């Protein structure tokens, strides 16, 4: 099982802040594909990946990053701190 977190408009579009998932996805990109096939709201949320950032176990990674051993994947838009 892997924890998936959503922030900001990704959280709003998907409609939940966090979920747990049993997945065979080997990379972040595969996980996104799996989620997008599941339901329309995921497909919409991930329709423009240029607007999406991802962190695996709290470290930012590219979409081709492996998920082996990962406990937490977080999806969010570009950060707007400060």
């Amino acid at each position, binding site marked *: 099982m892997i924890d998936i*977190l959503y*922030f*900001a*408009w990704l*959280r709003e579009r998907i409609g939940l802040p966090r979920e747990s998932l049993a997945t065979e996805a080997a990379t972040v990109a595969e996980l996104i594909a799996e989620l997008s096939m599941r339901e329309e709201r995921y497909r919409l949320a991930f329709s423009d990946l240029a607007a999406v950032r991802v*962190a695996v176990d*709290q470290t930012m990674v590219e979409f081709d990053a492996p998920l082996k051993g990962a406990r*937490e994947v*977080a999806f*969010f*838009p*570009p*950060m*707007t*701190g*400060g």
Partner: protein
Amino acid sequence: MVVRVQAADFDLAAELSDFGLGAGAVVTFTGLVRDHDQGGLREMLIEHYPAMTEPALTAIEARAKSRWNLADSLIIHRFGALKPGDRIMMVATAARHRGDAFQAAEFLMDYLKSRAPFWKKEITDKGESWVAAKDSDEAAIDRWS
């Protein structure tokens, strides 16, 4: 080196009362909620990613410390619902020389803007919208590489 992420407001003077003792130069930056360009801002909601926020800020601070000769540094960032005029965050840097203090403070701000897991939503009279990341903030990062 101190990093704090909190809902509560902070007091600049209290934070600086024993900050940078022995240093000759102290620079602070305070970010405040300002009204939306189109006016009518009621509230700014700041969301963050708790498990990642402090490690991310600490990493940014460590990077500044390795790059400039800093006597001290401080980052405070709030989350939750803020009103126009409210303080959002502050950074402070202390150094022997003013150039180090200024540059490190700018560096911290540039990284906070687009490398710390915060997201801002503006609630205005006309509706609500997530603040978009700016190309200029991404460009600001590049000058440090």
